[in-house]
């Protein structure tokens, strides 16, 4: 099997060059600090800080979502590997404008270990108060506590960004993001694998006519491997699983994210979106907002995820609040 071709320079420099790309395109609004931290240059004094991050290779998540109304800083690990603690420490100290810092990142063992250590060091150094709300939206696995963070992380970061921009206190921001987390479910499906640039090898293999439902964002094995099926059958399976999990009920208002894992075409996403609208409509669940595109990728994996976020007035307000970043802005 030939190596997957990548438009890169030295693999050692990928992450720093990516961050430099964001800085260049930001017109002065972002800076790279402490090597692996992308941070706003104009954080509002007195705001609650928001730090996000995780392994690289999932862009736009998390690095792209730094900006006004989103995160104040993002910590970028190597491809698919949690960032080392000292970068977390630097980001937390930088994002602290007196009201403490909220951490939002995916629920993976490596991330928890490194973010916890880094945050403890920051608190030891400067006394900054830190709270964490993990992204744990992947309802492929049953146990709530240990669920992984996947596509819905975009909504959680968006809401965290707005909450930290508006909240009077760290506790208030934390409460809003916890509510988002509790109302958020995602299920993904992989059609073909992405690759690790360091090895040029796909992170998993699927048969020529196979797909895997519930596959993790790094290629961790999912819940059901099956034959390729028509889009409408697949979408129905996924919506059924999602709706039953929370459960979402008749009369609920939701935001829906149809997220490209990398190499899936928008043509396919629109076919899925069409069916999801039909199914949720039939269940009496109202889609108040829909986002379609590449928000949380897994390198060039083909596949997509569907996220549902049950809204109340506060969450809807926060989701629709203005924000600015390289890949996602709204007025």
């Amino acid at each position: 099997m030939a190596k997957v071709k990548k438009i890169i320079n030295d693999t050692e420099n990928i992450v720093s060059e990516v961050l430099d790309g964001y800085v260049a395109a930001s017109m002065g609004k972002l800076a790279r600090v402490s090597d692996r931290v992308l941070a706003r240059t104009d954080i509002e004094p007195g705001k609650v800080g928001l730090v996000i991050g995780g392994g690289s290779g999932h862009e736009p998540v998390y690095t792209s979502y730094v900006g006004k109304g989103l995160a104040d800083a993002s910590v970028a690990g190597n491809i698919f590997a949690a960032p080392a603690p000292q970068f977390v420490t630097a980001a937390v100290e930088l994002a602290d404008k007196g009201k403490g810092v909220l951490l939002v990142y995916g629920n993976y063992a490596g991330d928890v270990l490194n973010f916890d250590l880094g945050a403890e060091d920051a608190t030891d150094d400067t006394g900054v108060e830190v709270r964490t709300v993990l992204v744990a939206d992947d309802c492929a696995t049953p146990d709530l506590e240990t669920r992984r963070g996947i596509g819905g992380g975009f909504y959680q970061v968006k809401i965290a960004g707005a909450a930290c921009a508006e909240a009077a206190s760290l506790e208030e921001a934390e409460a809003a993001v916890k509510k988002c987390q509790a109302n958020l479910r995602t299920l993904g499906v992989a059609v073909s694998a992405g690759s690790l640039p360091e090895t040029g090898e796909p992170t998993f293999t699927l048969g020529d006519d196979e797909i895997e439902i519930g596959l993790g964002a790094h290629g961790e094995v999912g819940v059901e491997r099956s034959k390729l099926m028509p889009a409408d059958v697949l979408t129905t399976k996924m919506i059924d699983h999602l709706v039953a999990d929370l459960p979402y009920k008749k009369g609920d208002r939701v935001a829906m994210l149809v997220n490209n894992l990398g190499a899936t075409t928008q043509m396919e996403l629109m076919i899925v979106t069409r069916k999801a609208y039909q199914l949720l409509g039939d269940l009496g669940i109202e889609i108040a907002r829909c986002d379609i595109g590449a928000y949380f990728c897994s390198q060039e994996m083909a596949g997509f995820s569907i996220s549902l976020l049950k809204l109340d007035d506060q969450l809807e307000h926060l989701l629709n609040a203005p924000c600015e970043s390289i890949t996602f802005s709204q007025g």
Partner: protein
Amino acid sequence: MELTIEQTRGMLAAMCDAIIANVDILTKADQAIGDGDHGVGMSRGFKAAKEAIEGAEPATVGDLFKAGGSAIMATSGGASGVIFGMFLKAPARTFTGDTLDAAGYATWLAAAAAQIQARGKAKPGDKTMVDAVVPAAEAAEEAVPKGLLAVAEAAAEGAHKGKDDTVDMIATFGKAKALGERAKGHPDPGAVSTTILLDTALAYLKTLG
């Protein structure tokens, strides 16, 4: 038998070289049940550790463990950066002398096992490197009366037994968790790394005769 500071430096450097040399084995182990980056991450961390260990000007044996462990923690990333950083860093504070003896070697592994479990929350049976380091520490402890070489030998054996036991475990932790029954048949990648490290330490001690 006990090691001088320079001999400890030699042992730790050899352990770093062994991880770097076995990157492909670790990659394959993590591809089977994880996300395929264990080899890349470990070799990144242990390359940095080797530099730090070789460049250190240690007053105590502990300074060397600290230099290596800190370097891994700062460069590896991932779960294994913290876990294997702690694996070296754990005993550093207690190693205030300029030699490493049989009791010291056992203390190292006991400290590592304790601190890794305290921080990482994985218990024996969860299919992590804890399943290798805990039996290694226990075996080392028992062998202390027989001297350093015996301790290292017991530790390596314990790690191997623990690693082999992970083959039949279902992962309840980390990226292999979703696999359920499908994780069976493969050893835990971090447990494999642990055996490589302790095998190499033992081999180094043997070269000292």
